[in-house]
């Protein structure tokens, strides 16, 4: 490894390679706990969908399929840019023009940050519309536009409860992801040796892809069950 001289190896590790694989393993273990964190809600979804099948069908008619698809595409473009950044920082040799590398990384990660903000804007606009229509679960819930089978039993509220909980928890992860990727964009575009932060970028990239994967499941579960 020609750039190993620029990477400081922490005390417990023999070499940079070992340090890197330990960092990646640590991130994957964290992501496994995150799968279970979201998992409780996914299990709850499975139970209520089994019990209130009709309510989920009716509820998803309120969602914009194309809007949700666009949100998915925005996240996937962000993932591509993060993957390219990760590739660029890993493959770059020590004699590469550091200024050029800094600018590229700052550009890709800055664009990803903006895409994340665009995703959240679309999501919160959707929340605004749903709340405006009286579809936020609670005492003010307006079920009058739904068929009697799901209106009189109030089962339709369960769909919206799960929708706001699951997409809300995902949105919280997006806020964290946007902060981390945005922070990396600033850090790397100012750093003398961006490659020093290669492991950090890989870890944050894994987090971003993970949040993306959660949305890949939320999209069919809430928008495409018609």
């Amino acid at each position, binding site marked *: 490894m020609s750039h190993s001289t620029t990477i400081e190896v922490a005390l417990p590790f023999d070499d940079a390679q070992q340090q890197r*694989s330990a960092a*990646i*393993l640590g991130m*994957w*273990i964290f*992501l*496994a*706990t*995150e*799968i*279970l964190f979201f*998992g*409780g809600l*996914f*299990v709850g979804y*499975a*139970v209520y969908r*089994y*019990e209130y099948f009709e309510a989920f069908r009716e509820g998803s008619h309120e969602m914009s*399929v*194309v809007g949700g*698809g666009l949100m*998915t*595409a925005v996240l*996937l*473009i962000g*993932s*591509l840019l*993060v*993957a*390219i950044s*990760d*590739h660029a920082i890993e*493959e770059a040799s020590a004699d590469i023009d550091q200024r050029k590398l800094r600018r590229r990384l700052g550009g890709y990660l800055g664009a990803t940050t903006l895409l994340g903000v665009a995703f959240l804007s679309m999501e919160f606009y959707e929340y605004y519309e749903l709340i405006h229509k009286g579809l936020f679960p609670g005492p003010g819930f307006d079920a009058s536009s739904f068929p009697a089978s799901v209106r009189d039993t109030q089962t339709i509220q369960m769909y919206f409860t799960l929708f706001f909980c699951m997409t809300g928890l995902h949105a919280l992860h997006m806020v964290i992801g946007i902060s981390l990727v945005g922070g990396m964009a600033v850090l790397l575009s100012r750093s003398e040796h961006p490659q020093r932060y290669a492991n950090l970028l*890989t870890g944050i*990239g*894994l987090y971003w*892809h*993970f949040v*993306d*994967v959660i949305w*890949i*499941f939320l*999209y*069919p*579960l809430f*928008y*495409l*069950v*018609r």
Partner: protein
Amino acid sequence: MSHSAELKPLFYNFAALMVLLAITIGMSYVDLGAFNLFVALLIAGIKTFLVALIFMNLRSTSNVSRLAAVGGLLWLGFALILTAADYHSRGWNEAQAHDLIEVEQARP
């Protein structure tokens, strides 16, 4: 330029993900009954596999990291399967108990 050649899988992967997204949107307009969700989740599963393999680099990471990734899914599988078994089997035992009561009451 071996550098740009190695970037290619990322772009191919992105293109595949976009095609799958278009398919899943298109399929939602075709009424397959209960199979709609099955198809949508199958496509989501394939997308997840592609993201994990290429973007998250599981194809060239250490085996122990792959184990951690699979471990999370395994435990999620336990939670889903055992909960589904619970809900599906509710009422089985109650029906038997009910029959017994009827038998008891039927006795003179």
